[in-house]
């Protein structure tokens, strides 16, 4: 069984690769690990067909998801593996440029990647440039990445044109998450891709952090490897802030197989039963509303209205009228933005209403002493 974090980070000649690698990627059923779980082979083929030596490869290490740490860990500890993946992509897609797009606050990751780049051959170094990604949630979204690299402003723009048609400087562009590129590098070298994923385990576990799981690993096993639960769990958030809440009994046996389950960016959050779900959901909705780039009215006003209503329930207690509005509004917001930000936020919220329906219906404001305990 090949594992990503078992690979040594060494500088060695790249394997000979060509278009055949795309078929191998397809057979391995690799999906993107940035959050959207898009099939990698489809993306590569679309760029390869249009490249004619002009394509651009963007190494996406923006990692804007607040709870995720896995991309940073990978760039910090396995920079050559990520660069291998990038240069392999450049060869297969006959690209003329590689751009490292790394979160501006991820300084250890950036330093490590740039140090590793300095050790590469001159022809490799010559095609690489570096860009620091603004530390906002939408800055890692494909369309925002391209807007940033073209115009210096990291807001999503309208699609089409798709990146594979006209991305950076209007050339066919591949924007690929760093973990995905590392997986491709291992596949190209060993003929086998790790079939697991890097996940970030957060919340009520004894040792939160990044770990690598296999496709047959269940959430329970992953938690046990991290020292177990700190206390009984109320719910599990699978896939970060664009993911879904699950009841513990549904979540425990779930396999962390990225080609089957929608793991999103790989964040698994355990909500301990001592925390208040309503207040947690309200806080995350406020965050997502504030991360709207305010380009589309339904996203900016819709998410703000949802967050305000959640906050009202959290602060003043449940109210059937507000609850009903919340459900109606969330249906109104979906699909009405130029990017997927409102859809992701609404998906998160709908799962919260399903799993925490009772709490939302019977929530009472917390006393001051309770608030102190909850915020601890």
């Amino acid at each position: 069984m090949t594992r990503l974090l078992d690979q040594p980070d060494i500088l060695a000649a790249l394997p000979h690769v060509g278009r055949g690698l795309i078929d191998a990627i397809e057979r391995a059923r690799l999906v993107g690990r940035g959050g959207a779980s898009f099939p990698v082979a489809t993306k590569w083929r679309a760029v390869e067909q249009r490249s004619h030596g002009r394509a651009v490869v963007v190494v996406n290490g923006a990692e804007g998801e607040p709870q995720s740490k896995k991309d940073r860990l990978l760039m910090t500890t396995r920079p050559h593996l990520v660069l291998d993946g990038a240069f392999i992509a450049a060869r297969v897609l006959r690209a003329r440029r590689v751009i490292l797009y790394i979160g501006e606050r991820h300084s250890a990751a950036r330093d490590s990647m740039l140090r590793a780049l300095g050790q590469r051959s001159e022809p490799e170094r010559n095609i690489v440039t570096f860009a620091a990604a603004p530390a906002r949630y939408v800055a890692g979204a494909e369309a925002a990445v391209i807007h940033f690299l073209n115009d210096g402003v990291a807001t999503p723009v309208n699609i089409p044109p798709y990146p594979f048609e006209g991305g950076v400087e209007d050339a066919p562009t591949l924007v690929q998450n760093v973990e995905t590129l590392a997986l491709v590098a291992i596949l190209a070298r060993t003929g086998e891709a790790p079939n697991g994923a890097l996940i970030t385990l957060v919340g009520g576990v004894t040792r939160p952090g990044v770990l690598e799981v296999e496709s047959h690993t269940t959430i329970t096993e992953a938690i046990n490897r991290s020292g177990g639960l700190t206390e009984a769990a109320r719910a599990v958030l699978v896939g970060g802030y664009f993911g879904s809440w699950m009841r513990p009994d549904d979540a425990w046996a779930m396999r962390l197989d990225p080609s089957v389950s929608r793991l999103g960016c790989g964040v698994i959050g355990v909500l301990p039963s001592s925390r208040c779900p309503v207040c947690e959901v309200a806080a995350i909705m406020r965050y997502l509303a504030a991360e709207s780039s305010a380009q589309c009215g339904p996203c900016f006003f819709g998410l703000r209205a949802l967050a305000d209503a959640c906050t009202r329930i959290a602060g003043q207690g449940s109210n059937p009228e507000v609850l009903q509005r919340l459900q109606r509004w969330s249906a109104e917001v979906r699909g009405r933005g130029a990017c997927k930000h409102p859809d992701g936020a609404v998906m998160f919220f709908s799962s919260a209403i399903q799993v925490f329906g009772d709490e939302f219906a019977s929530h009472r404001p917390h006393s001051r002493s309770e608030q102190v305990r909850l915020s601890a």
Partner: protein
Amino acid sequence: MSNSVLWYTTRGAGAVTLILLTAVVVLGVLSALRVQSESWPRFLTTGLHRNLALMTLVFLALHIVTAVVDPFTNLGWAAAVIPFSSYYRTFWLGLGVISFELLVAIVVTSLVRGMLGHRAWRAIHWLTYAAWPIGVVHGLGTGTDAWSAWMLAITAACVAAVGMAVALRLNAGSTDPLAAARGAFRSDVDRREAR
């Protein structure tokens, strides 16, 4: 189908179109006015505006199709699409055709706004301020019921509603919270200087 049914449908659909279109225009102006409350957040106004606009087109299509297929009028399809080509009330009917075609342009560009870009979409959307009055004048000029008391009351109410909304719009300040938030967000993710 008896001819009179078609004829009554034409007239009825015309009146309904006027009412719906007026509601769409008022909602559009109100959304620009940023009218909202706790139970009615602003994004619902635009949603209703869009859905009513699509419904308006349905009634407008009914209005046009029943007029054309009515053997009594014998208008022909050309009269429905080429302004001022109708033998019958050439001028007033021509106004209706122009209003209809402007509305189609406004709706189609809204449906493909993503491909068009905001500025071009907005420029075309401003044509509403031409399409609506031209439609009203078309109704007054050629409407069979135009000068009956009930239709006059409807038309007057529609004109008053749009007039009031536009007056409010003209008096309101130009600070748009969406534009302000967009500007703030953009400046936060703008690194043009640093490059």
